Each structure stands twice: as C-alpha cells, then as structure tokens.
C-alpha cells in the first residue's frame, strides 16, 4: 500500500510562496516522476511529502490517513538522497541496518533483511567496507538498500543519479526501473532530466515555479502537451515553436513541430533555410537551421547520415498531422 494524496498543499519560505495550492494523487504502485527546470519546486514538493519540510497550508494523506503533522519517521516512507547521505563511519552492513536498529528489531531479523537486500543489490561482497571505499554506483546501491530494508509504503528519490557519470546513469536507471517492477511499491522520483522522466515513469508530473503544468503518462505528454511549456520541455531535442504569420495560417498564436516530424526534402519544401551546425550521430543527424524566417533557429532530425554541410540550403516540409497548435495564452488548441 502506498497511495499519497496532496490536497491544496502550499509552501512558503517567509513571504515567498514557492508552491501555490496544489492537488495531486499518486496511486499505489505507481512510478511517478516530478520533472521541471531547476528551482521549480520539485525537490521541495518531495521534501514536503517526506515530512522534512512542514507544509504551510493544506493536507497530505498517505493511504487515506492524514499525515500532515506526522513526523518523517512515522510516515512509512524511505528516501534516497542526491548525495546518498550514507553514514561515513559505519560499514555498509551497519548503514543498511541502521533504520532497523532504530526500529529496535531483533538482531536475527536485521541480519536476514540486510543480507536479503544486499543480495538483491549485488552488495554481498561489500558489506564490511566503509562507504568511502565504494564507487559512486555502489554507494547509490547502498542508499537504495538502506531504503528497501524498511519495506516502506513508498520510496522517494531526490535526483539520485545526478552524481553519476553518463554510462553508469543509464545502468542505474535500468536497475531502479527493474527494482520497481520487482517490488511493485510506489516510487516518487525527482529529476530535471526529461530523458530519465520519459524512460522510467508511469506518470510524469511537469512542474514550473511550483505549479503543476501537466500530469500524464510519458506518451500522453509527448503527443498532447497541454501548453507551450510542456511542449518545449518534454522531448529531445526540443520542439520548434513558431509564432507569427506561419502560425496564423493554422489559426493559432503559436505552432509547434517536433524535430522528428519535419522531413528534409530535395526541393520545393514548405520552408527553407541554411544549415548551421550539423550533429552527426550515425543513426540520426540533427541540423540546426538558420534564416528560415520563422524562428531564430530550428532543429530538424533526419534519419541516417544526410550529407548536407554547413551553409547549404535545406528544404523542409512539416508533417501536417503532427503540428501542435497553441493559443495566445500558450494553451493547446484541440
């Protein structure tokens, strides 16, 4: 069980309201990702759920019970921190056992659970080492181990992969996803990386300045972004947003086309421009295009290796069915 419900939750630091009234339900067993640019309040929101910050007004319910004034330890949640927050003077075994020791569990049960967690996380050989003797990925796993031994109602992750290098990050991403499948426990995950959000989430919550911009599955957000912010934030490379005359042709204030939904054609394209930087990835080529008369730069994805060079003229045709339209307030026009 691990349903978390936020009702009209607000948070102010002094006079500054960082989270205006906010409602959100996280269902049992769901992998929910909070994503947004830095400073959007996603970490604050997670800390409010954890109980490490007091909410200013509103209610938090965990499994239908009011948890607003419950201390962090009694909420039945476990958290993995960005810095891992391992206890440096304790061995891996003692680190993982710490929450159980605090709960005054008997030693035999502690050993059983610690060894179980270590086996799941491939830490058995490292149980007697200190955190300082482990690599970044191993420390990460110890932090997760310390969370899972408690068998919490939900896991909270605060940007857990941001201190790892790119290759390790991809690996840990998979491990966390697999752990979620195995445990089927609610997980709330904070990140600023939309790739992590897209690949891991059952449900993405896009935040900006403490306000929820959109909630939905990764593909919902990709296919039908509710406004220009979500449209620009979800998807990589970013969606091209075009205003002015071209948008007016589609009866909209702004239109958006994803780089992968524009075709490069030999001639007579609907739009044309000069090629700026071309990023050749082998499987794809990303062109940054100038002088289209539509927006400053436009990004286009071509499949495979297309031999256009810097300064060449490029002809483009957007796929009409894939054009997103937004009104003057930035909201999607159905």
């Amino acid at each position: 069980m691990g349903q978390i419900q936020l009702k009209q939750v607000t948070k102010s630091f002094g006079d500054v309201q960082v989270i205006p009234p906010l409602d959100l339900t996280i269902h049992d067993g769901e992998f929910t990702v909070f994503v947004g640019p830095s400073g959007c309040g996603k970490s604050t929101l997670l800390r409010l759920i954890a109980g490490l910050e007091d909410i200013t007004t509103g209610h938090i319910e965990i499994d239908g019970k009011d948890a607003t004034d419950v201390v962090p330890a009694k909420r039945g949640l476990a958290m993995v921190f960005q810095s891992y927050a391992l206890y440096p003077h304790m061995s891996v075994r003692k680190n993982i056992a710490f929450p159980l020791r605090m709960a005054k569990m008997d030693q035999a049960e502690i050993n059983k659970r610690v060894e179980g967690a270590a086996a799941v996380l491939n830490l058995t050989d490292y149980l007697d080492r200190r955190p300082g003797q482990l690599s970044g990925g191993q420390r990460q796993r110890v932090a997760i181990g310390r969370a899972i031994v408690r068998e919490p109602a939900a896991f909270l992750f605060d940007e857990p992969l941001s201190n790892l290098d790119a290759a390790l990050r991809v690996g840990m991403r998979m491990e966390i996803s697999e752990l979620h499948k195995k445990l089927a426990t609610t997980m709330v995950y904070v990140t600023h990386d939309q790739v992590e959000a897209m690949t891991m989430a059952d449900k993405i919550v896009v935040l900006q300045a403490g306000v929820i911009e959109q909630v939905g599955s990764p593909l919902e957000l990709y296919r039908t972004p509710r406004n220009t912010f979500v449209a620009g934030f979800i998807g990589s490379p970013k969606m091209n947003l075009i205003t002015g005359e071209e948008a007016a042709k589609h009866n909209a204030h702004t239109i958006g086309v994803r780089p992968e939904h524009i075709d490069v054609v030999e001639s007579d394209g609907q739009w044309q421009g000069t090629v700026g930087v071309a990023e050749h990835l082998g499987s794809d080529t990303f062109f940054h295009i100038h002088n289209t008369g539509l927006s400053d730069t436009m990004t286009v994805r071509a499949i495979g290796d297309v031999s256009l060079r810097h300064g060449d003229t490029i002809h483009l045709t957007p796929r009409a069915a894939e054009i997103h339209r937004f009104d003057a307030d930035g909201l999607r026009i159905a």
Partner: protein
Amino acid sequence: MATKASRSAARMMMAPAVVLLLGWMLVPLIMTLWFSFTKYLPLRGDSIERGLDWVGFSNYSRFISSSSFWPSIQTTLIMVGGVLLITVVLGILLAMLLDQPMWGQGVVRILVIAPFFVMPTVSALVWKNMLMDPVNGIFSHLWRFFGAEPVAWLQDASLSSIVLIVSWQWLPFATLILLTAIQSLDSEQLEAAEMDGAPALKRFWFIVLPHLARAITIVILIQTIFLLSIFAEIFVTTGGAFGTRTLTYLIFQRVIDSQNIGLGSAGGVYAIILANIVAIFLMRIVGKNLDT
C-alpha cells in the same frame, strides 16, 4: 617536488627554520639534562664559570622521594583531566547551539571567542579579585543575596576554582574547532537519519558525535600539551597552596624559591617523561580516529 633540483632547493630553503628550531629546542634541553646531574645552588656560590660538581642521579632520587612529588602528579592529572572534560563537553554543546541560525550570529561568535584573547595572568586576576573574592567578589554578593554563606573559593575549593578558570579560557578554543567540524556535517545525513527513525538524541549519538571524533581528538591533543604547563593561573591565585601544586609549579618552586637549579632540572626531565607518556596514551586511545 618532482625533480632533484627542486628537492635540494626545498631543503636549502627549509634549512634556516630547521636549524633555528633545533637550536631553540636542543640547547635548553641539553642544558636541562646537564644541570639535572649537577649540584647547582647559585646562593651557595655555584656557577657555570667555576664549574659544577657532578652528582649523578641524586637530584632525580631527591625529587621523586620528596613528599610533594606524587601529590603534584595527581594534581596535574586532575587539573588537565578536569579542564579537558569540561571544555569538550561544554564545547560540543556550545558548538551545536552556535550552529543554529539566529539573529546576531556573527557578534555572538566573536563574543564566544573573546576569553581566548585575554592573557592568562589577567584573566586569573579578574577571576580572583572580581568574581571569587570572598568579601567583594560577585559570587559572594550572589551567595549573600540568597542568604548563603559566601564561599572562600580559592581556599576551600582551590583546585576546582583553578579548573574553572582554565576551562573558561580554553572553552572558546574547543568550541571554535568543534563548531567548524559541526558545520562541515552534511545536513542530508541528519535528514536521512531522521527518515530512518532516529530521534534527536540518537541522531546526536550515531551521526553527530562520530562526525566530531576527529575534531575532539585534535582538541584533546592540543589542549593537553598546553594544559600540562599551566602556570600563571596558579601563580596569581593560590601560589601553589591548598593542593594546587602541579608538577610545573613544583619545578618552579624548586628552582626559584629553593634556588636549587639541579633539583628543578631533574623535575623538568620528569615532566618531559610525563608529557610523553600522556601523549603516547592519547595517541593510542584516540589515534584510531585520525587514520580513517
């Protein structure tokens, strides 16, 4: 220091400091050793020019068989131990208090450090005459205000009084070092412990205290070195009377009051040995904290 040239250049540049330090240390040390084996009573006409009589180990046996030797060792250990206990315990508490965000933090921190800048002689005089004086001291006024009989601090509780004075002087040092150590503690560790179900006292015991172990070690080591040679506070307040004669003070009395330089030098050598024993013990006990 990669190349041969830079290594020899480094040695050349360090040489003056090394020579100076060695001279500063070795010359007095060797002179002390020499005097300790001679009969050197300046009032009876002994002097270096006329040559001193070699007496072997008789100064050593006389110093140790004196009735005031063992009590002085005991006094020294009580004084050092008492001051260490008070400064470390109060230092940890004060450091945690000062770590809390509060109005006027900068000023408060400077005020806390202030006692460290007061010269030992001056602070001992202030304590003796303004605070602990049985007639006019602030304490005696306080005691009388509550209808109690004023305490003659430096006579009836002489050793504790001196421990109090010295602790007051060294508390800022301990607080300062422990404060910087506390500030380097990652707040996420405390939050993680909080989530793990550790109440405040257990967070202190399992997270804060182990984090401070290294800083506490350093405070104990440095303070012990300085506390073994406490002098001004005793000289100004009790003059070594009422059971406040430490080893340092006993040596001073042998040399200056009894004008027996040989006997005092033998005591000095004992003091060196005592300091080393204490240092080795401390390193053994707390040294483990330094290598991890």
